[in-house]
């Protein structure tokens, strides 16, 4: 489903972010990418969204070379990938409801669908009562749950969660991971990057360990080993 083919990334200042990275992800997998800060985890997931271009190699999503998709078509591909960021990245001028609805509106979905689906995902992340609050009125954990709701509302094939718990306390971290697991159980592929040992050890899923731009381990049912 997702295939990284010998991907390398060298930034303008000659620092190497990724070096000869190859791996594939099957539909329905829950895969964690771990490693120290600067190991290349974020660069790796940004490639799938075409937010970054590889210096060498290619990234395929459902047999499409992501970096050959033109700028004005890339949003169609992104709608198949839900994204959750470490810093939440909600739209500050929109309420929780509107933030989720925006992803559906942008995808050109009908009003009736929006009216029925948004409350449904709000319920899924247990934030129905905060629907009309703006992001700055929500706690970090709540904001991240809204971000997850936004990521899943278009029923994407993949969810990318880039250090989603990096700014959260243990209780919220646990909740976020539970939600991601629930999404995965419903059939969506999840790619999670983290450097939280507790999260990885509790998941008991596939773990790719990175160090200085290279994959050093790829374990079927991994633990956090660094």
């Amino acid at each position: 489903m997702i295939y990284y083919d010998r991907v390398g990334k060298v930034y303008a200042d000659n620092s190497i972010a990724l070096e000869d990275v190859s791996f594939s992800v099957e539909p329905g997998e829950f895969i964690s990418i771990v490693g120290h800060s600067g190991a290349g985890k974020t660069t790796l997931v940004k490639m799938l969204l075409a937010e970054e271009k590889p210096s060498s190699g290619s990234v395929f999503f459902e047999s499409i070379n992501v970096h050959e998709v033109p700028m004005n078509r890339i949003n169609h591909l992104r709608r198949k990938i839900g994204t959750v960021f470490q810093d939440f990245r909600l739209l500050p001028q929109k309420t929780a409801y509107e933030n989720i609805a925006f992803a559906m509106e942008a995808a050109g979905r009908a009003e009736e669908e929006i009216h029925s689906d948004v409350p449904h995902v709000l319920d899924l992340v247990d934030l129905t009562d905060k629907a009309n609050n703006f992001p700055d009125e929500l706690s970090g954990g709540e904001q991240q749950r809204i971000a997850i709701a936004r990521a899943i509302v278009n029923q994407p094939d993949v969810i990318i969660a880039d250090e989603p718990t990096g700014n959260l306390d243990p209780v919220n971290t646990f909740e976020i991971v539970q939600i991601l697991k629930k999404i995965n159980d419903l059939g969506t592929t999840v790619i999670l990057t983290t450097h939280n040992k507790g999260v990885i050890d509790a998941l008991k899923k596939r773990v790719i360990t990175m160090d200085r731009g290279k994959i050093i381990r790829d374990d079927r049912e991994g633990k956090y080993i660094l």
Partner: protein
Amino acid sequence: MFDSVILKRILRAGFLDFWRNGFVSLASILVMTVTLFVVGTTLFAGVMLNSTLATLRDKADVTVYFTTRAPEEQILQLQQTLQTLPQVEAVTYTSAEDALTAFRNRHQNDQLTLQALQELGDNPLGAELDIKAKDISQYDAIAQFLQQQQQNGGGGASIIDKINYFDQQHRQALDRLQEITDSAGRIGLIIILILVAVTIAISFNTLRLAIYTSREEIQVMRLVGAGQFYIRAPFMVEGVLYGLISGIITLLLLYPVTYWMGEATQNFFGGINVFHYYLSHFFVFFAIIIGTGVLLGAVASYLAVRRYLKI
């Protein structure tokens, strides 16, 4: 797949952002109002400059003096010929008697001159044709034509005594007048253009700053799968709103300002009352000011968003 649902969403997003970014909207509208006000006042300045220059130019003329023996029908014939010339605006005939009356009136306090006139018994003055050209630069051609008439002299001695265009002084005065009005017009235009360009640049930058504050939002919208047009359009709606509101404020502001300045400008410049001019040309002002505002808002927003869409 541009349909009414998308249009509705874009408009709603534009209006909502406008409302929720209240302070940014307010600042943008203020700056834009200043711009449009400058555009409006330069329109008035241009109109007043033109009318002043036109009044000045109107003072130029060429007078043909005829000999005292010139028969009236020949003079009137010449007047008709002159009026058919494309360069000529108007030709006024003053008969010898009228010229004498005017001369008497002019010198009514000068007993010596009047006495001398009395002594002469006969009317020493000839008839005159006063010629106004359509443009100040065309007097030369008209004078050349008259000179030819004088030389060909319609058979026998010419009826034309003198053409004042060939007086050194009169000619110099005409040339000076042309120079002054031409350069005043040119300098006025340059100043107006610079002023308008500068204020438009300021507005442009203000809108760019306003959108700069939304740059991260634009990137997030891209990453959650929104198309370029779908992101850009609400910003353009906002820009158009700024332009509309600023335009209306400017049109409202111009009313008391021109009212206040109307009397003063009428006395100072060649007879144009800016207040009356504003009211009689309101639709022109409406179109120019609202049009400038809306166009400025839309184009500036379009360009400002573009750089953040490259993701």
